[in-house]
Each structure stands twice: as C-alpha cells, then as structure tokens.
C-alpha cells in the first residue's frame, strides 16, 4: 500500500501517490466501482434472461405460481429497501459535510433496515418450506396437474435463485457497512476523503435497484388474475 498520509487539521487526508489530486482519486474510485457494478448487472442479467424466457413460455403457470408468494411481505420489503437507500444517501451527505456523528447514525440505520429486510426474507423462506413450495421431491401445489406442477417448480427455482443471490448481496452489503461504521468511528473520513462511504453507497443502491425489478417480476405478475 503506497500511500502518503498528511495531517490536515484534525483529519487524515489520504491521497495515493499515483493521483494528482483528491478529485481525480475520487473519480477513479467511482469509475472502478461502476466497472464492478457492470459485471454485477450482467451477473444478475443472466438470471433475468432465464426468467424472461421461461415466463414467455409458461406465462399462465408462472402467474399462478407467483400468487403463492406473500405479496404483502414483498411490498413491505420493497419499502424497507427504499428507506435504507434513503438513509444511505443521507449518510453520504453527512460524510461530505464532515458530520461524523450523523454519518455513523445513518449508516447504522442502513444496516438495521438491511437486517429487517433479511429477517422478513427469512420468514418468507420458512413459509415456502412449510407450504411445500421449495423445488424438489416434496414440491406440491394442491389442485394442479402434474405437468403444470413441474413448470411451477421452475418459477420457484428462479425465485430462490434470484432472491437468494440478492439476499447474499444484502449480507455482503451489511458486512461492508459495518466495516465503514468502524472506519467512521475511528475518524478515518473527512469532507476531503470519504471515498469508501461513497463506494459503499453505490453498492447498496445497486442492490436496491435489483430488488426494484425483482418485486414486480416475482410478486406482481399474476395479481390481476388472482381472483379468477
């Protein structure tokens, strides 16, 4: 780690030697994060593509299977994630302003909301196990003919793969946030240097965007025909 550390006032300013100034360093950091997020977009993109192909093929079964999900929990979780994105944006704002206390408070709020999301997700997964909706030999939906049950399993395979990968990203995000809170606690950030908070925010918002698409695709696709 070739870093030159200079003390300005009470804060530490960290400018790596290959950069001309803090602005260039900040922009390079953000660019690198976006390159990583590009690979993430295509990583999730593969699952979204698989979902699209199978949904086009078996639309009716997918709509029926989708109605087995708990839409209220999915809806609440969407709001929880949007709130967490807002608290994260507020945390970045306070990092830029140099308000260390509020930076820590809002990052803690973000982690808490992330954990609430994962808790609700765990409740949903437990329900799926109880209702025999986990793909495998115990999978069954009452009153559905065997061929359709096989296709409904596809929906639930995609449901678990997509929400599972998303939940994994939430866990990584929460761990990352805890590291950032510890760094803020040790007064590592200042209005001149808070790139880790900014990049952590980019990751958190990205995971939120994935859920913004997962919610209508998985929970809402059959709602209009639910009463029929």
């Amino acid at each position, binding site marked *: 780690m070739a870093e030159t550390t200079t003390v300005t006032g009470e804060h530490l300013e960290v400018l790596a030697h290959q950069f001309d*100034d*803090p*602005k260039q360093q*900040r*922009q390079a950091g*953000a*660019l690198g994060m*976006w*390159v990583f*997020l*590009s690979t993430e*977009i*295509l990583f999730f*993109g*593969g699952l*979204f*593509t698989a979902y*699209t*192909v*199978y949904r*086009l*093929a*078996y639309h009716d079964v997918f709509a029926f299977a989708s109605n087995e999900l708990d*839409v209220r929990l999915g*809806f609440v979780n*969407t*709001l929880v994630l*949007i*709130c967490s*994105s*807002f608290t*994260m*944006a*507020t945390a970045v*704002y306070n990092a*830029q*302003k140099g308000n260390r206390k509020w930076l820590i408070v809002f990052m803690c709020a973000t982690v808490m909301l992330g954990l609430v999301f994962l808790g609700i997700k765990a409740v949903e997964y437990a329900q799926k196990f109880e209702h025999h909706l986990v*793909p495998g030999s115990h999978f069954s939906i009452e009153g559905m003919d065997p*061929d359709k049950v*096989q*296709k409904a*399993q*596809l929906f639930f395979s995609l449901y678990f793969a997509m929400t599972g990968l998303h939940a994994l990203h939430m866990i990584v995000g929460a761990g990352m946030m805890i590291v950032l809170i510890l760094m803020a606690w040790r007064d590592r950030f200042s209005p001149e240097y808070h790139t880790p908070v900014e990049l952590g*925010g*980019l990751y958190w*918002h*990205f995971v*939120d*965007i994935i859920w*913004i*698409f997962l*919610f*209508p*695709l998985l929970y*809402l*696709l059959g*709602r*209009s*025909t*639910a009463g029929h």
Partner: protein
Amino acid sequence: MSEKIVSMKTYGIIFITLVVLTIVTYRVALIDLGVFNAVVALTIAAIKATLVALFFMHVRWSPRLTRLVIAGSLFWLLILLGLTLADYIARGPGWTHGLRYPGNP
C-alpha cells in the same frame, strides 16, 4: 476539487417519489390490463431505477467516462436479452418444446 453535494431536499423528494411509485406499481398490478400489466410494471421499475441511479448514485453529476461505462453495461445487457429472445422467438410456434424442466422428456 469541490464535489457536488446533493441537498437533503432533493434526496427527500426522490425518496417520496420512490415510495409513491411503489404503491402505484402495486395498485396497478391488481387491475387486469392483459399484457400491459407487465409493460406498466417494468416501466415503473425502470423509472425508479433511473431515479436511484441519477440522484442517490450521483450519476447525474458523474463524469462522462463513468456514464459511458454504465451505458456500456446496459448495452451488453440488451445484447444478452435481445439475442437470446431473438433465438427462441425465431423458432416459431412450438418453441417451448425445446425448453427443459424437471419431468419434461
């Protein structure tokens, strides 16, 4: 040197818009619009994602190079989706026979 600091007012407006759009997308999903249910749901999701990216992720104030990377990743996503669907749809009626799932001979 100075970095764009987005005001809390802007963040607040975006937050409220996102909550309203979430309620709208749920309400609309309960009405039977046929194929347009999917169109409306995905349009609202795309608007929400754009708002998050532009304001929360500061893309609106990002340098061109960063925007190019984002546009590039979306273009590649379009290739992935577009060419895959073009293949399946070009197989004509009965294209689902080629799909495999548990129990499909």
